[in-house]
């Protein structure tokens, strides 16, 4: 008898299956790809501390490419780049902060942990729908012959397009407004060249977030170092990308051709091109987290945290999956999803989302996206351009001038500054 059906062996599903199996439940983990991770693409950094409690010493065995010890945020205009660069040796030793890894590797590894704990993984199997009786989810249909499977609890971990959450009415069918499209290139580059170009050694790695490089389409770019490859891509608002009639891969080409980025990627050859959607609505656009007989986790519930300088989905997926798996038994016994919801509210998963609920709107706003990068870059260029024989202009004058050139009113700047202070407080 199956106790729990987990749909989707991404980070959320495997975390849920792991905890439910550890609790002695009979767990079936369904994945539509030929192996876990084969359908999944992302930018490139996993923040693994969420695993500390359940897989102590995970960093010894996780399929890590590099440990992120250097994080840069760059503001780009067509001709300028302003970089805030931070490095910390703390991030290069246990318990670490973030690592670059590939999803095919990471998801396979985490699913393996669930299998070790006793979950039954069935790959190449699509859950095609829910079996609902008397308003209660009692199982799923799959595309295999004789494919119906019943269980007292279904955990939907089927990612951003979650057809299960949609079928249960927990998620709207379309929501282009709250989605971003991410496209990424994995570029082959020798290890020594990466070490050289990015100033890192051994298994140290770099995370670069780029703003202002997407032709005014709300979003941003990223560049991460793997062992002997780079991950370079953009994440852009689906609604605005469509309206602008721009092709996403052209934005990546722009990024790679930018004078501040081109020297990093020179001579690198494409190994793989990928595309995937991201739920970026934040707290105000989460799915309902449950319906009788079913819990929703990870991207399926919209739990990816995307707030400009943060793009964290895997840790949130794992966090929600662990909670769903941990409380599966009590949800089954009591027939009530409250323990799951409470666990999420008590953890970073919903707390961070709640705190940053205003971030998506602010970060994706027109001024932050299109005007501020230019304003800041012009201001800095003004400060550092030696204008002899003329005397140096004052900072306030430079600010006024940069604001005017970029079409920003100083009172808007002040208002956005205050709003930012509130959102990121």
């Amino acid at each position, binding site marked *: 008898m199956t106790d729990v059906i987990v749909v989707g062996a991404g980070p959320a599903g495997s975390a849920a299956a792991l905890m439910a199996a550890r609790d002695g439940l009979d767990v079936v983990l369904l994945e539509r790809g030929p*192996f876990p991770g084969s359908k999944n693409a992302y930018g490139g950094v996993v923040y693994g501390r969420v695993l500390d409690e359940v897989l102590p010493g995970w960093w010894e065995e996780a399929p890590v490419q590099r440990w992120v010890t250097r994080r840069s945020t760059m503001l780009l205009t067509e001709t300028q780049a302003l970089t805030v660069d931070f490095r910390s040796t703390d991030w290069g030793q246990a318990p670490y902060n973030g690592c670059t890894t590939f999803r095919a590797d990471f998801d396979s590894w985490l699913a393996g942990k669930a299998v070790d704990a006793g979950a*039954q993984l*069935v790959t190449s*199997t699509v859950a095609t729908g829910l079996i609902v009786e008397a308003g209660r989810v009692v199982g799923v249909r799959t595309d295999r*012959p*004789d*494919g119906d499977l019943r269980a007292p609890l279904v955990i939907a971990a089927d990612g951003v397009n979650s057809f299960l959450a949609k079928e249960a009415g927990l998620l709207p069918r379309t929501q282009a407004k709250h989605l971003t499209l991410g496209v990424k290139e994995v570029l*082959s580059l020798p290890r020594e060249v990466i070490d050289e170009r990015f100033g890192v050694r051994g298994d140290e790695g770099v995370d670069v977030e780029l703003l202002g490089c997407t032709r005014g389409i709300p979003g941003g770019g990223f560049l991460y170092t793997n062992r002997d490859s780079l991950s370079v891509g953009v994440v852009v608002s689906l609604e605005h990308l469509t309206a602008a009639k721009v092709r996403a891969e052209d934005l990546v080409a722009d990024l790679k051709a930018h004078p501040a980025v081109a020297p990093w990627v020179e001579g690198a050859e494409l*190994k793989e091109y990928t595309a995937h959607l991201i739920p970026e609505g934040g707290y105000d656009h989460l799915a309902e987290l449950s319906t009788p007989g079913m819990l929703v986790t990870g991207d399926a519930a919209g739990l990816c945290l995307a707030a400009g300088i943060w793009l964290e989905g895997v840790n949130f997926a794992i966090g929600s999956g662990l909670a769903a798996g941990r409380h599966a038994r009590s949800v089954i016994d009591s027939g009530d999803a409250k323990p799951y919801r409470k666990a999420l509210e008590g953890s970073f998963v919903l707390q961070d989302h709640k705190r940053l609920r205003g971030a998506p709107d602010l970060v994706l706003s027109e001024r932050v996206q299109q005007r501020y990068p230019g304003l800041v870059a012009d201001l800095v260029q003004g400060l550092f351009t030696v204008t002899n024989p003329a005397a140096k202009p004052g900072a306030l004058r430079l600010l006024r001038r940069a604001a005017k050139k970029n079409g920003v009113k100083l009172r808007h700047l002040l208002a956005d500054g205050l709003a930012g202070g509130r959102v990121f407080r």
Partner: protein
Amino acid sequence: MADRLVVVLARCTDLRAEVDPLSGAITRDPRTAAFSASDAAAIEHGLRIGSAWGARTLVVTAGGVECEGPLREVLSLGAEVRRVPTRGSYVDELATDERALAKSLVAAIGGRPDLVLCADRSADRGTGALPAFVAHELGVVQAPGLVSLELDGEDLVAERRLDYGRRERMRVPLPAVCSVEAAGIRLRRASLPASLAAATAEVPVADVPVPGPAVRVLGARAARPRPRHLPAPTGSSRERLLALTGALLSHEPPTVVGPVAAPEAADALLEFLARNGYLSEARTGWTVQ
């Protein structure tokens, strides 16, 4: 007839080993090990004929532990499975002595099969020689490159492609070794209960001599076709311009045929090929009016 045995020899490997675009290093991903389309076709033929005969169907694969996943899938289709372990790197495996491999596989079968099926050529080794070695080893007839394989009473009737588009239909006396193409047949999918039951099943490993490499591969590199160098055109600037734009070359305008019925379209195509010297009566046996 009781106790008949149908054997399928199927290669299971990464069908798309990655060649690094810079270094040329070849990586085979164990997670994507799978049967090629023609290997899958051989398995499906084996299952169909096995069940028509009420016979056992045994699928044997030579390969590493990465083959166990796909073999479990076959297990859940009701066949027996066996794995012949291989050793060495991927490149070593590619260089395996085909004859020694045939010997190991036959030893792993461990009985006298009535029919041995395999793919006409494997996805990554591709010599097509294995069925011949197996037939030799068993001392039976072989019928390679089949596009269809049907039971006709107690006999097998097969069809295969010949050069120049001809086909051959034949009656295959048993026992025999048949290699098949992936034509018009796909491997069935296992039911969910059977997949669940087989998910953790043991895949038996055959206790036979493990074949090693026949040749030693010293290195491999990525294919880098050289660009074709065309001489710069000469002559006056007008001539050079004409040469660069191709205006001096004669082009045959595209021929528009149709819309016409299929036979007429076929005739038009043949006529075009014959007119341009691609077809001759002697080679094809076709008469082109």
